[in-house]
């Protein structure tokens, strides 16, 4: 039993080291990858623009729920005019970065992992190595950078749409005064809150993109291997996002 647990811990440490080494090699390759903006821009489009619909829809619904729940809660204390503040702070600081990261892991992360994993399984990465092209530079680095850049942008869009959704329910449906809603929001949100959300989303972007690219790059070159790697991307990204969220929140408060 203890031997099994030891093996488990050792395997965990080995994986951590392997991810760290991979990150170091990846970051070195990011410099030349930035010299080919076309590849990076395409990956921002791939990870970012193609996730827009799901991000906007989710943002709208999350905002609407926030409006409804927030209104119900606040009107018990007779302070429904604080709805704008509650929604804006909740979205900017917590909900937008976290939910965007979770959606990103499910939408873009899995796509990255399975794409790179399939390239591995069909010898495309090996072929690049034989053609003296480092696949880390050509395949992994642009995708990593694309994810890192796309995440804060998606988070910002999520916040805006979410706030609009909260306003839609709170003001149009529940009858909170529009002027009060926006002026409360304006006066209570400061740059610090926006920074917190953006820093979080940048960190989540780094973590989720790294996990997606790493799992794809190291997937076993079989159908089952790519499937397993894709699953691992979602699980690891989600857990990592929530864990990092706690750490960052504690840091910012």
């Amino acid at each position, binding site marked *: 039993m203890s031997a099994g647990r030891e093996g488990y811990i050792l395997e965990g440490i080995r994986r951590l080291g392997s991810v760290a080494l991979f990150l170091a090699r990846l970051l070195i390759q990011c410099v030349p990858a930035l010299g080919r903006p076309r590849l990076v821009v395409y990956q921002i489009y791939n990870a970012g623009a193609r996730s827009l619909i799901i991000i906007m829809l989710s943002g709208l619904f999350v905002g609407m729920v926030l409006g409804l729940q927030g209104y119900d809660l606040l009107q018990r204390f007779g302070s429904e005019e604080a709805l704008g503040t509650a929604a804006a702070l909740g979205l900017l600081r917590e909900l937008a970065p976290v939910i965007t990261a979770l959606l990103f892991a499910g939408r873009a992360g899995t796509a990255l992992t399975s794409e790179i994993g399939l390239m591995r399984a*069909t*010898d*495309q990465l090996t072929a690049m190595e*034989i*053609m*003296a*092209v480092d696949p880390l530079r050509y395949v992994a680095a642009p995708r990593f950078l694309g994810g890192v850049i796309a995440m804060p942008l998606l988070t910002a869009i999520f916040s805006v749409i979410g706030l609009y959704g909260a306003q839609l329910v709170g003001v149009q449906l529940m009858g909170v005064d529009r002027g009060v809603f926006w002026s409360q929001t304006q006066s209570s949100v400061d740059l610090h809150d926006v920074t917190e959300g953006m820093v979080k989303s940048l960190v989540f972007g780094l973590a989720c993109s790294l996990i997606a690219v790493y799992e794809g790059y190291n997937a076993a070159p079989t159908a089952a291997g790519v499937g397993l790697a894709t699953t691992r991307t979602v699980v690891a990204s989600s857990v990592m996002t929530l864990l990092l969220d706690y750490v960052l929140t504690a840091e910012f408060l």
Partner: protein
Amino acid sequence: MTSPQTAQPAVTASAADAVVAVRDVHYAVGGHEIFSGLDVEVRRGRITAIMGPSGAGKTTLLRLITAQITPDRGQVSVFGCDLATLGTREIYALRKRLGMLFQNGALLTDMDVFENVAFPVREHSDLPEALIRKLVLTKLQAVGLRGAAGLTPAELSGGMARRVALARAIVMDPELLIYDEPFVGLDPISLGVILRLIKQMNQALGITSVIVSHDVQELASIADDSYLLSGGRIAASGTPQQLRSSDSPAVRQFMTGSSDGPVPFHYPAPDYATQLLGTDEP
């Protein structure tokens, strides 16, 4: 790791002629020995066939030659450089001088045929677009697929994909071309085309070729030298004709395709009767 930096006088006579020299290579994966004292030499300007049954380590040998893996013991030299002494940068420089055709083509799926062939050129040179276009079209013409330049890899048949991959492998004018199982899964017409192309690349462009395959008939028609891999070492070598007239049972079994011989039909198993009639233990 050993560092055999001193030149070995015994082999220098033929070394000038050898593009690839594999000497006394030992290689094991997870305790399972794949090579135990392997010696292979590929001579300049010739087509060298490496044959052997499935699982004999043919693809592993290619991975050794292309420096994807390093041997546990022994020496692999390509273009006269001992691969063990080279750093990553030098290995990449060396790889620019060789081309490799993968079993399934390994074309990059996110670009079309033209871009696939242009890929190594774009990565390794600053040639103007017009010149790249001419270069790529010439290579595609050589494999008969100039008309397919706009297709995506998904639209190609297996044989066409392999021809595009061949065009990509020769676009940088390599000195050494490595073919991994080039005949697997091809219809007779595509097979004939590939055979003719391999011969043509060798004769017209003077490219040294290494072919790894188990298709004895096809190889015999084009190979200048052949090696038969078996049990982790070279079981026989020589021209295909010499191999065919060999009286070694291992060589005979492989060349004639008999199901039983030194390579047994049955995977090692406990006694048949005992297992069938014995207890119901799995």
